[in-house]
Each structure stands twice: as structure tokens, then as C-alpha cells.
């Protein structure tokens, strides 16, 4: 059995300034992040901010706000420390990055570029990249002791680690330099550099995508070059910041094969990248309150039903048997994580009977997570 994750020790550790909650979609990541942030503020008196990335009406509502936006706003009725909450607006964050690194005119030019519009709002990886960017900004202000980060609802949890580098590699990479060089006038040098395959490349993609797209891309990257080159450097710096021991990663999972599989992959990757992984939280276990085996319950129910098919006691026993079977199946799935990652401290949380709709529910969730 792996060790139990001590959530309170983690939240109260003043050397930790970032807690990143990672996991695949639908495992309760956002709720967990909000509940941990609230507990860090109330129980440990820390000045905390939770940065969520989901298009999150839900988190906002449970925190007593109508909506969250790109600016951290205080959560009302927090007892103890302070808690701010915000939601990442990736387009606005990207705009801020551009605006802060260039003149007004140049920024306007970039904003008007159709390719910029596409990159800043829909580019796969932009969200992850901007989450890192925002995290860096929040840390730089020094306003908070602890930042709790809810990671993007990516296709795969790994995107969170991979996407920023991919975006940076892309914006800073070989092909894009080639294109920057392929704006009219520079065409010949590009051809001599890259040879025939580049010519095929340009021809085919001009044909397939329509000529103006490549021009847009080339203009966009050219303007980025002289405003703030080195996207890659920036992403690498954020990546390194995540590796230091002021950061703590928590893997969040639910007892489903896909979610546990993702959690295992993610744990391996974090370990490989030497990221500080401090534990795994398994949400949503079926709660079982009575200690009676499935077999006993079913046998007793069948016996009672012989006399009266509608015996309510039999219904109670069958309900218990269903819960116990679910729990057994879930434990078996959860055991895969333990087998694959025995060194990671775990915390298993039965689903709360109610859904999280307000601060009290978040408090209860946090208390359950801490085993308090």
C-alpha cells in the first residue's frame, strides 16, 4: 500500500507556492483545485489564488460569483486567509503579452492579422501556453503565497506539459523561419537554403490552404520576431519554474480505466521531466456505509423475496449489493495506479452525497480531502 497523501501538510507548507492539479477531463479537477485553495486560505491562513481554465460557470458559482474573468477577484465569506479566483482568458492573456512587448501601432498590426486571431483563440496549445504565461505573471506580482492551478481540459493530460513547448517550437522553429524568409524578396534565399523539398512544400501548401494564409503567417511571425523573439526561451523558463521545489503537482483521477490510465502516464512523464509530483487524489469512489459482503446481501435479499417479492428490506439489501459491487470494481481499477506508481502518496475520496454548489460544499470537499 502506498503512503497516504497528507493534504494539510502540503497546503500548509510555506515553501510551496504553486500547486498544479492535473488529470484528464471529468475527474473533478476544477472542484478539487477550488476546494484545496479554499482550505489553504481558511485552515492555513495563506493568501491564495485559484486559477481555473475551464470555461467555468460552475466554479464561479460555487465560489459565490456570477462569472470569473481574467483578473483575480476576492471570494466573499472566506474565513481566515484570503482567496482570490480567476479564469484564464487565453485571447486576452495573449493580447497582454503582445501589448506589453511592443509599441501600440505594432500591436494593432499584430492584432489585425487573421493568423494571429486564429493562433490566439483556437491554436491547439495556446491555452496551455497561456496558462503557463499567466502563472508566471501571478507569481511575479508577489501578491499571493500560494497559487492553485487547474490545468486545461485537454484531450490528454499530457498536453499540459507538451503543448507549450510545441507552440514555442512551432513559433520559433525551422519551418516558420523558412516562411518568414519566404515573404516576397527573400524567396530565392529560402530556396537555396532548403532545396527542392521546400519548393514542393510552399507550392503544395499555397495550393491547399490558399496563398494568403502563408503570407499571413509570414507577416505574423516576422512581426513577432522583432517584438519579442524567443518564444521557446520563454516556454523553457516557465517549464524550469515548474521543476523547482516551490511547485507541487497533484495528479487527479477518477476510478475509471481511462482516467487511471491517463494518471499513470502523467505520473511517468512528471517523473521523467523531474517535476515535483507530491501525490495523487482519486475522486468519486462510490461511498459504501455498511459492512456486509455483496454475496451475503444478495443471498439475504433473495431469501426475503421468496416470501414477498416487494419486500423493502430486500430493496435495501440490493441497493447495498450494487454499491459494494461498484466499489469493488473501482478499487480494482484504482489498484492499477498503485501497482504502476507505488511510490506516489495517494488520497482516495468517496464521492460526496451532494454536488458542490457553494462554499460550504467546497469546505466539506476540502475537509474530506484532508481527512479532517
Amino acid at each position: 500500500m502506498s503512503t497516504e497523501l497528507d493534504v494539510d501538510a502540503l497546503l500548509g507548507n510555506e515553501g510551496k507556492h504553486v500547486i498544479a492539479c492535473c488529470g484528464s477531463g471529468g475527474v473533478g479537477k476544477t472542484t478539487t483545485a477550488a476546494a484545496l485553495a479554499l482550505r489553504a486560505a481558511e485552515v492555513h491562513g495563506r493568501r491564495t489564488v485559484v486559477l481555473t481554465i475551464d470555461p467555468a460557470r460552475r466554479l464561479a458559482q460555487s465560489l459565490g460569483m456570477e462569472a470569473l474573468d481574467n483578473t483575480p477577484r476576492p471570494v466573499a465569506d472566506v474565513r481566515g486567509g484570503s482567496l482570490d479566483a480567476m479564469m484564464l482568458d487565453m485571447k486576452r492573456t495573449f493580447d497582454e503579452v503582445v501589448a506589453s512587448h511592443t509599441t501600440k501601432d505594432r500591436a494593432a498590426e499584430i492584432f489585425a492579422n487573421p493568423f494571429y486571431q486564429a493562433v490566439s483563440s483556437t491554436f491547439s496549445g495556446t491555452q496551455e501556453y497561456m496558462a503557463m504565461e499567466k502563472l508566471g505573471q501571478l507569481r511575479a506580482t508577489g501578491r499571493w503565497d500560494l497559487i492553485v492551478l487547474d490545468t486545461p481540459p485537454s484531450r490528454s493530460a499530457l498536453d499540459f506539459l507538451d503543448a507549450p513547448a510545441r507552440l514555442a517550437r512551432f513559433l520559433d522553429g525551422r519551418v516558420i523561419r523558412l516562411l518568414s524568409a519566404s515573404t516576397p524578396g527573400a524567396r530565392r534565399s529560402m530556396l537555396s537554403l532548403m532545396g527542392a523539398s521546400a519548393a514542393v512544400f510552399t507550392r503544395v501548401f499555397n495550393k491547399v490552404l490558399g496563398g494568403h494564409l502563408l503570407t499571413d503567417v509570414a507577416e505574423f511571425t516576422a512581426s513577432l520576431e522583432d517584438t519579442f523573439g524567443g518564444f521557446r526561451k520563454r516556454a523553457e523558463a516557465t517549464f524550469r519554474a515548474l521543476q523547482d521545489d516551490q511547485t507541487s503537482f497533484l495528479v487527479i483521477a477518477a476510478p475509471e480505466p481511462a482516467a487511471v490510465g491517463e494518471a499513470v502516464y502523467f505520473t511517468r512523464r512528471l517523473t521523467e521531466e523531474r517535476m515535483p509530483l507530491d501525490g495523487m487524489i482519486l475522486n468519486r469512489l462510490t461511498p459504501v456505509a455498511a459492512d456486509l459482503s455483496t454475496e451475503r446481501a444478495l443471498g439475504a435479499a433473495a431469501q426475503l423475496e421468496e416470501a414477498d417479492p416487494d419486500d423493502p428490506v430486500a430493496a435495501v439489501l440490493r441497493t447495498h449489493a450494487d454499491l459494494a459491487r461498484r466499489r469493488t470494481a473501482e478499487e480494482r481499477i484504482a489498484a492499477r495506479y498503485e501497482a504502476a506508481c507505488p511510490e506516489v502518496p495517494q488520497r482516495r475520496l468517496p464521492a460526496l452525497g451532494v454536488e458542490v454548489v457553494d462554499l460550504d460544499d467546497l469546505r466539506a470537499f476540502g475537509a474530506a480531502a484532508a481527512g479532517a
Partner: protein
Amino acid sequence: MTASALPVPRLHVVTGKGGTGKTSVAAALALALAGPGRRVLLVEVEGRQGIAPLFEAASLGYEERHLASGLDGGEVFGQSVDADEALLDYLTMFYRLGSAGRVLQKFGAIDFATTIAPGLRDILLTGKLKEAVSRAESGRMAYDAVVLDAPPTGRVVKFLNVTVESGRLAKTGPIGKHSRSVARMLHSSLTAVHLVTTPAAMPVQETVDAYRELMAADLPVGRIILNKVTGAKPAEITEDELESGLARAGVAPDSALVKGLMTEYEAARTEIRAVDAYRDRLEELGRPVEELPLIPEGVDLSGLYQLARELRPGGPHEH
């Protein structure tokens, strides 16, 4: 248009919030649609390899492969469509690129192209679907139905509504033209987008939101599938009745056991009442709502067939 009935959907897009079981439902739907002599293709597009383990099969690739026998003697095939492969496929088809395509791939150009145009990835994936839906082999349709394990509700409209992106980025060129023809199919009655939810607040809310978004985008919504519904029977009972009932059945009714069972039963009854409320909320959308039972042991191959029987055209009790 003639006055004849609308064509039956041949492309079934299955979406849902993460954790609602959309992949299992997509797989079960494929089995259900594979009636006698029918061929159904089950496709995933996000490289998650979620389908193969359900069928206890090896990982799916870009090549279509036989996966399982359908519920009533048909056949289900599986495929995992990857955007890079689809682009190569596309280039080979339209430009007879041959080995030059592989060179482009090595050069990073394929990755580049599918990355620079965010819509391009989705156009290629949906384009591949259209090809599968409309492909004919020896005088008949290659597949009677195609079932897509689609991106989750939060992203599905963007995924299906490819024309918006492509219109902005690739106004000219064959991709633009191609994407418009794909969009026509996706917006027609040949397509049905099915929404999978569980009886819980957030998934139901996302389903309602997704329904509105789909309607606003003029995409055809099919069924709403309420998944993982527990089958507990609601009954009134007191602690005393429970205690004497347990004794009758030969189970020692200590007070902790009685309390525990009561707690569980109360929670189950609350859940049943909640399911009723969620069902009402979903029915207000005006689409058929179908229920699938929670399978306590988790969905394995036999569980899939069980779900498929529930989803069979005409319902579970037809046979």
C-alpha cells in the same frame, strides 16, 4: 426535395462531458446499429485509444479493422483517424504526391500544416468521416452507418463547425472547397449528434448548453442518452423494519449495519429523485431521452452488448 421522409442518419456523432461514458455509448451504438448484414464503422479522432480496450482488441490504427460482431449478425469495424495521416492521404489523392508526401512529413511540413491552420486538423478529420460515410464498394455503400466517438461537449461544436475556421483561413484552394462539402453533410439529416450525460448537475448542464450551441450552429441533434442510471427501487422503510427484516434473512442486525444500510438507501432514494428531475430537464429540450443502466462492474465487452440491446432500433424489448 421530394415529399419522401428525411433520410435516416448515417453518421452518428456521439459526444458528452468527460466521464459520462461517451466512448462506451458510441461503441454500444455501433453494435446496436450493426443489424443483420449491416456494416458499421466506429471511429475515434483524438488518438486516445479508448475504443480498443472496450473490445479487448489491439490498438486501432488508420486502417479500418474488424472489431466485433454486431448485435444481430452485422459487423463492426474500428478506426483511429489521425490528422497527419489524413492530410497525407488527402495530398496523395489530390496531388498524386507519392513518396514526396513522406518527404514532407520528415521535413515537419505535415505537422506544420496541421498546426498552422487550427481548423485544418478538424477539416481533415471530418473529411475522412465524410469519405467513410459516402464510400461505395462493389455497388453498395461500404458502411451502412459510421459512429464517431467525438470530442467532448465543450469542443464538439467547434469540431463539427469547420466552415467557420476554414472560411477565415483558407478562403480559396481545395481545402476550402472540401470543407464546405463536408459541412453540408454535417448540417444535413444524414448526420445526428447524440448527447451522452449522466444524472448529475454538471453533465446535465453541459448537455443543455451543448444542445443550444448545436441548435444555434444549425447542427442536427439526435438522441439524448442518460447513462449510468442506477436501478434501485424506491420504497419506504424504517430502521425497525429493516432490523427485523435482516433478522428474518439470517443477517445479524447490529446497529452500525442498520445505520449504514439506511444511509446508503437514503442516498440512493435521493439519487432516484434527482434522476427524475434531470430527466424532466432533458425532456424539455424536446429530443428523445433514452436511459442506459449503470453497470456496477464497469463496462466490459459483455456490458457493451447489454447497452447495445438497450439502444437497438425499436428499443430493448423488440426481440
